[in-house]
């Protein structure tokens, strides 16, 4: 029974999302006329989902949580077995209830708030997907299933930041947020791989129990993978800047994603990995350090923000940083309570953000004198501690340069090798035509070669011709010397390229790969 109920919790919102999508594709619920239907479907699914969660969590209050519930096998391939299972422990159930409640509240809020918006249906669809994603994350019994939710949450976040995709700012920021999150996803995948490799399973329980058997180094590496994911999703230093860019969407989506739920997914993951973290002291220290940094970053930057959404966002980041500190210190219980209540509170605060100017009676209390005097620190806070430019400088720009180099390689070498057509001999401008008229027919090549073989033959012919011409017919040694100098130039060029940091990094990475 429990497994059916538990599976229905994420399935219902997904189903509703599919329904809305199908209705939209077939034109059944488009425009203003379709709003009522969309709203009912969405609220109905979210409401039923909440009821089902309550069916699980309320009895758990007095009878105790049911614990892990296996549902079935997803796929099996050799040693690899992926199961669908739910971890109905107190943490999971409490969070599942909260997620369902906040999502339902936001959906209901949006019915009026988004009335007559062109993206009404799209908004509800994505919000439902997000609800399913969050439910999967908090209820999943194993890391693989949680990863499905993790990705779905990332995608829906991307879709809602870019909700007003007509504004270039919105789409640009959405892409940025999405890409930053991919770094975290890579960490998650690493964690998945290592836990399968070392522990043979993805089950939270197995990971927790198995952690005790791992060496400290291995436990650290395994934890690092998951922590990377958690840090990125919860926008901790150094990944923090993406979330400040994520405020382009409608107010309710800002509330549910970045104020309330998704920003806490990282904390939840850490809570899930409590036993692993206890085995990985280095990582716990790392958490404390990054958490403190984030809390200070969020707090100080938040003090200088002059728009409501950013101010709330930095405040949220700071609080989430504190939660990581609690986790690092081993106060998991505190972190869990802090997380749940904070999520609820921010949902309220973000949804009320437009009314702020009518809810406050006086300006914010000024910072104390000792802080106010630190001008350099204020500049740093105003510039958000340059996290973003620094990341750009360290990572983004070298990557883009690398991309451009590859592109040029493609253009100069690959496309010539495979023989893409070139328009060298056609008349493609009036100038060509004129010069041809004046200078008579341009010397036509004797034959034209295409493709690797053709090129090879041509090259061979040219080489022989040249050999004959320079070395045999003209004799003398200077030709040979020129060839050698040419080769030397090439070598120099390659060396120059290697001196650039990006190629050094590539080389180092290749070395690592080979060693591993």
């Amino acid at each position, binding site marked *: 029974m429990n497994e059916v109920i538990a599976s229905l919790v994420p399935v219902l919102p997904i189903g509703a999302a599919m329904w809305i999508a199908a209705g939209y594709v077939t034109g059944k619920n488009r425009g203003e006329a379709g709003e009522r239907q969309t709203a009912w479907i969405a609220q109905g699914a979210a409401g039923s989902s909440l009821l089902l969660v309550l069916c699980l969590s309320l009895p758990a209050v007095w009878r105790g949580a049911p614990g892990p519930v296996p549902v079935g096998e997803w796929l099996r391939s050799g040693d690899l077995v992926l199961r669908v299972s739910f971890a109905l422990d107190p943490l999971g159930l409490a969070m599942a209830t909260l997620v369902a409640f906040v999502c339902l509240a936001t959906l209901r809020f949006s019915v009026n*708030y988004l009335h007559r918006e062109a993206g009404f249906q799209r908004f509800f669809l994505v919000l439902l997907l997000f609800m399913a994603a969050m439910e999967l994350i908090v209820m999943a019994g194993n890391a693989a299933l949680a990863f499905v939710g993790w990705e779905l949450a990332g995608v829906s976040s991307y879709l809602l930041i870019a909700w007003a995709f007509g*504004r270039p700012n919105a789409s640009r920021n959405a892409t940025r947020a999405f890409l930053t999150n991919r770094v975290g996803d890579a960490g998650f995948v690493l964690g998945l791989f290592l836990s399968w490799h070392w522990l043979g399973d993805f089950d939270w329980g197995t990971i927790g129990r198995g952690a005790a058997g791992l060496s400290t180094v291995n436990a650290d590496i395994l934890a690092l993978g998951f922590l990377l994911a958690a840090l990125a999703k919860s926008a901790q230093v150094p990944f923090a800047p993406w979330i400040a860019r994520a405020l*382009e969407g409608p107010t309710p989506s800002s509330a549910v994603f970045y104020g309330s739920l998704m920003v806490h997914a990282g904390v939840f993951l850490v809570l899930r990995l409590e036993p692993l973290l206890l085995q990985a002291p280095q990582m716990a220290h790392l958490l404390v350090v990054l958490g403190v940094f984030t809390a200070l970053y969020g707090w100080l930057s938040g003090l200088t923000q002059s728009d*409501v959404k950013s101010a709330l966002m930095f*405040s949220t980041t700071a609080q989430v940083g504190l939660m990581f500190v609690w986790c690092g210190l081993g106060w998991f219980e505190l972190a869990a309570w802090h997380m749940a209540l904070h999520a609820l509170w921010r949902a309220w605060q973000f949804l009320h953000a437009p009314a702020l*100017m009518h809810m406050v009676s006086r300006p914010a209390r000024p910072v104390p004198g000792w802080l106010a005097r630190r001008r350099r620190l204020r*500049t740093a806070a105003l510039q958000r501690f340059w996290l973003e*430019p620094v990341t750009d400088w360290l990572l983004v720009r070298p990557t883009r340069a690398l991309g*451009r180099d590859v592109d040029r390689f493609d253009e100069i070498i690959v496309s010539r090798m495979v023989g893409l057509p070139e328009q060298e001999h056609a008349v493609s401008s009036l*100038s060509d035509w004129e010069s041809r008229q004046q200078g008579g027919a341009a010397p036509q090549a004797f034959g034209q070669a295409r493709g690797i073989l053709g090129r090879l033959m041509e090259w061979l012919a040219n080489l022989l011709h040249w050999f004959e011409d320079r070395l045999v017919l003209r004799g003398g040694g200077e030709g040979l010397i020129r060839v050698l100098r040419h080769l030397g130039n090439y070598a120099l060029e390659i060396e120059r390229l290697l001196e650039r940091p990006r190629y050094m990094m590539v080389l180092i990475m290749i070395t690592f790969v080979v060693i591993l």
Partner: protein
Amino acid sequence: MRTIAAHSDEVRREIREAIRQLEHVLPGQAPLKGFVHHNTLHGFQHLPFPDALAEVHRVTGNYGYLSSDRFRALYAADRIDREDLEQALADTAELEPDKSLIEGKQGLTRGDVYRVALRVRLSKVTASQLGWQIEEQEALQRFQDDVPESARQCLLAASTGSTDEPSAIADLWDACLQSLGLQHFLLHPEDLTDLSAEQAEQMFEGLDKDGSTSTQPVTHREMRREAAARLGTLLDRTGTELTLRGVLKELTGEDLLDELRPVLLRHLGAWLDLGLAAWRSADAGQGFYRSWRSSAVRDPVWLFEGLDDWHVHLKSLPNDPMETIIAELERLGLPRGRWTAYLERLALELPGWSGMMLWRERHPGHEGLPEAVDCVDYLAVRLVLERLHAQRMTGRLWGVEPSLDMLRWYFHKNLPEFLARHALYTTRLPEYLASQTRRLALAQQAGSREPSDPWSQVARMIWTWQRSPASEQSAGYSVFREGWRLFRLAQHLGWSGERVRDLSAEQLREIFATLDRLDAETSGYLWLRAYERHYREQVFGALAANRGRGPWAERRERPAAQIVFCMDDREEGFRRQLEEINPAIETLGAAAHFGVSHWWRGLDDSRPTGLCPVDLVPSHEVRESPRRGAERLYRRHARRRGWRVRLGDAVNQELRRNLLSSVPGIVAAAPIAGLDLSAKLAAPFRFGRWARRLRERFDLTVPTELDYVAERPLEAPSPENVQSGFSLEEQVARVGGFLRSMGLDHGFAPLVVIMGHGSDSRNNPHLSAYNCGACSGNHSGPNARLFAAMANRSEVRVALRRQGVDIPDDCWFLGAEHNTCDEEITCYDLDRLPGPLHPAGQRLLDELDRACIGSAHERARKFASVRRGADPQRAWRHIVGRGYDFSQARPELGHATNAAAVIGRRSLTRGVFFDRRVFLISYDPTRDPEGEILEPLLLANGPVAAGINLEYYFSTVNNDGFGCGSKVTHNVTGLFGVMDGAASDLRTGLPRQMIEIHEAMRLLVVVEARLDVLKRIYDRQPPLQELIGNGWLVLAAMDPASGALHLFQPGTGWAAWQGQTPKLTLVERSVDYYPGTLEPLEPVLLRTPAGGERAGA
């Protein structure tokens, strides 16, 4: 450097003056808490309406009319009819609609061409659109879908050779091309990569080859000549049309503003902030420029951003922002003559922020903030930032400084690069050219060393493409432009191929010239007048049909009660409903400051609010204080309210501001927040009322009174020397003046209610926009209460009686406030109502309650979320719930659909259903033969009503340009404005949710007065000449005696209304007419007992 020193003072004066002039082009919106409707284009009001809109379009790029497509939809929906369009066309003499283009039996006038061009889209098409039309829509075999049946028949009948549709249409297309000397072959742009000899020959022949003495190839020379000319034009546009950012955008496709906007806004937002950020700048007194510079100098951001010059440049900047502006403009190499234009351009790149800066400069010390605000600071920072970011770009790409001279020098050396870049980023190149050009641009960005001159080949190809028939912008006639337009026009005129072939070259030229005359501005203005005329005819018809029906024209009987509402269009519905409930009630309308402008300090206010029109500053202060005996209660109230407010501030500010101490706060607040959220969302109506009652019970209600009698009157109270309270003479003058202005100086009912208004909703940054515009976006209840108190004083009445205003002793004034959002009425000082009036008072309160429900029901019809046919009680609950619902982006619809104003007696309009679209201002012409009352009335109310109307107009016609877009993505900034997301321009104007049902037309003001009186007033008053003579509102006069209607037409003067009095539908009550539709309704007559006076007796 010498030049700066020599001209310094003069230049400074010039720049100062230019900044002063910025108020004409920048939005003049105040911080949102003090939002008051005003003409969005206030700065252009000195120009005639169409000229102003054309000018704004030119300067800011914002088009000021509804799109032609929207007008066509209105035409199709019968909101504009044929006659309106004809009339508007006939009124536009400069279009010469009667001028004949083709003589003869089957002649053609300009008007015929205009008619087609107005009704259907005759614009040029792109190559791909034409391809799509031909291949997918079979445009060469079928009639266009929008061709009317008559034209089809006509065309087919005229085609002699071929009577079937496909061949007739194909023949027409051939004829069009033939007569224009064009050839149509569906040339794909990529065909140009391999030109055939004929094509090349043909295009080559078309070249202008004069003066070919040089040895260079012709094409080469021509191309260079053209590129150089384009380069010259681009650089010459700097200042007047473009900034450096604009120039670079046309050359690189990259927008500098994208990079520098977030950097700028962080500093600017913090500087202008009204209380959101806790950490303010420490050098508030120094000005924005110096504060920014001292912060920027310490900022190592240049290290990571590759802004190599940052540090050096910042350190070398002068201390004086004005000097910086001059130095930067000098370095830019801009001719002196274009400096001020450049600064205007720069300000217009972020109009919202620039406007707010300017507003704060004009209102120093706003909310007592220390920050010095000066636009010179702002422009200096903008210039420096623009330069630094431009420097990075130009240095990286071309190795030059970002100045016009350097750019000119570089691109003169590299003309092919200029040609290719400019073509890529300003026009739509075909894919094969665009990708090649982009590749080159990208390679250059990467700093790679390309072989000699990679741009030449691609520039040659682009240039060739531009002169080919495949390009849409080739010179002379083009298939995509003239060919297609003629083809469409001919179909709609029902012309066959033969007729088109008969056209002479001269006639063709005339036809296209005629089409070009109807540009966007002209057609927009024409449509607008047709649209306005349609509604105007309805209003005139209704006024004419209602003549003599309305009661109280002379007030021979005594009304049961008189209620003075705000002139607000929203009160029209309420008044009508109330009069239907009890026809013996007389309602009046006036600007709801009620003539008692003052600084108001309510019981709980920490500082006074000016309750007066926005352009006035009051000279009197009035306080609300606890009644005698209630002092202890007041102290308890103040204490408890203080707790509550402090708690609110702690929750909203401290929990956001603090780090560690917020943890317990959040933990404590969260469960309550969860409950609050569920209750609010599940039952907004019930929970809202319950929470309000709870709050009132907690706060304790204190009986209060007003301190409005001046104990020690000052010699001459003034804004600088504010007097506490009003002296007796002042009270008499204000009460008497106001009553006389409404014509209410006789025939007083036993009860006279003065009804202020305000609006209240939960989650709405634009709350002030729903409040009383006559009280600067505040609630006008205090004014009503104050006025009633004054009018009830026996000393005042005695003095008034001596002046001929005889308020009988059994008459009592009551102050009240109408909440236009949740339809609640609050009466003040009810307990002071004299005993004999209690029954009448009670009855009136009941009737007001019923009117609230009626009004709510009528309003509910325009909300899509109310079920059609909901009963009044349900509708009322919905409306009240909206006010409490924090998820509502449309708590009420505000002034949407306002369209007219009537200044005159209520008897003119009573008995007509005006659908809440009409401002009603009471004025009795029979008691004002010389227009002495009318003159100030027009001067005060004309601009207010026009301001509301024009703000709605502009926000509706172009919500992106003049309005502030959707509320959904709004982000409250600094407690003074809203942005889209976290780093956009400050959005001004009205949000989309407020205007989506508005019908954008200028206000029609009908004044009940003799024509000669109005003419005299108009001649005396320059403000009215500006407003009316320039066509910012439309004025009409109704003669009090004969009822004849005259319309004022700018330029030509007064013209008598030609329309016939229509037979209007007669309905029993409003509720029998309006339900079931969302659209605006035509006026109808109501069967109110015609003898309201009899009923009142």
